């Protein structure tokens, strides 16, 4: 009987689906807000950069995962 760790596969699937919803949502949200902001609306621009910040944080987290020297 082969012992298969389905839990690990579930973790990978969960992480991937989460990343693929969160990143496109925030990045395209940022792009959209930037458009809405134009040159006038400061709150929209702040919102846009907050969205981009989430994406940058996700990339940095990705780097942290790749580089074992960080953890």
């Amino acid at each position, binding site marked *: 009987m*082969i012992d*298969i760790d389905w839990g690990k596969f579930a973790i990978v699937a969960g992480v991937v689906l989460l990343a*693929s919803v969160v990143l496109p*949502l925030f*990045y395209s949200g940022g792009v*959209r807000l930037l*458009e809405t902001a134009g040159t006038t609306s400061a709150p929209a621009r702040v919102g846009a950069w907050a969205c981009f910040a989430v994406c940058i944080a996700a990339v940095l987290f990705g780097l942290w995962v*790749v580089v*074992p020297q960080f953890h």
Partner: protein
Amino acid sequence: MDTTLLVTVVLVVVFALVFDFTNGFHDTANAMATSVATGALKPRTAVVIAGVLNLVGAFLSTEVAKTISSGIIKTDSSGHEMITPALIFAGLVGAIIWNLVTWYLGLPSSSSHALFGGLIGAAILGAGLGAISWSGVITSIVIPALLAPLVAGVAALIGTVIVYRMTKQATVPHAKPAFRIAQTVSASLVALAHGTSDAQKTMGVITLTLIAANVQQAGTGPQLWVILTCGLAIGLGTAIGGFRIMRTVGTRITPVESPQGFAAETASAATILASSHLGFPLSTTQVVSGSIVGVGLGKRLAQVDWGVAGRIGLGWIFTLPAAAVVGAVAALVAISSTIGLVAVAVVAVVGVAVIFRLAAKKPVNAGNVNEGAPEAAPQLQGAAA
């Protein structure tokens, strides 16, 4: 060390580096294909970035190398490796030949599966079916190979739908340049992750050989010169360019636009990072191909060329067994005598030369890599909305 063993070890190291080099130019497409297809990066810039990141990645992680050197081929009851350096050499020949055949055909097949297949074929022939850890094969190769492209594809599909909904089918101003940037960043992450997993595979093979030849202590990690040469080989292979496969991945499966490229690379990067963090030796190629099919399905009016996708799928199914057969045949001759060993090396070199000659007749390079890409019929984004 007697002469035969010395010759064998030298051959293994050389052929392992050759495999690593083919791995580099076979799999450049993985990370950078969509970026090149959408024009986010120029072809030469893309391969240089990928090459450098592959080299950097090679120095970073060792999780996958452990699976290679301990997960698939068993040790006998006294703890000795059941695979000999001559068998490893034969396995590498199988992997290199299959990798080059699929490269010639422009098929994004898995270099990892070619390597596993070659080693498994050689090990079965030399040491019997019992030398293979079949549960290791199922859990580290078969199941990830089935699940990873599926998961990445579904995730990329969802990502694509979200991106196009949020940006009114990417018609808002700045959408195109913004997604090009995002795509480049996510593609770079894929390239880095590729370096951490694929260069590791070759390091694992060389280390396994040095241990099997009793010149390195069992249970120790790769030596510095091994890490350095493997990193350079894969980086060089990547930078010299895998335009042949890049064209299939970036333009033949489905026309890719920058928002889709972003969704595809994000799903790929997440899949590769999450699974290599947990120690699965995933095929970067299969993950990226799965993502691209996903983004093709996720965009309205985009079409996935199922003929191309089917050919790629067939290539995946055949990769492991085909490399195993070549590996087994090579093993049959290689373990007979030193002359047999050298003969296999000579035949392999001739085979490689023939494939390169054939490929040179129908070259795919930085100039024609985007033939048939959406850029050739530009600005369909708004029209498709």
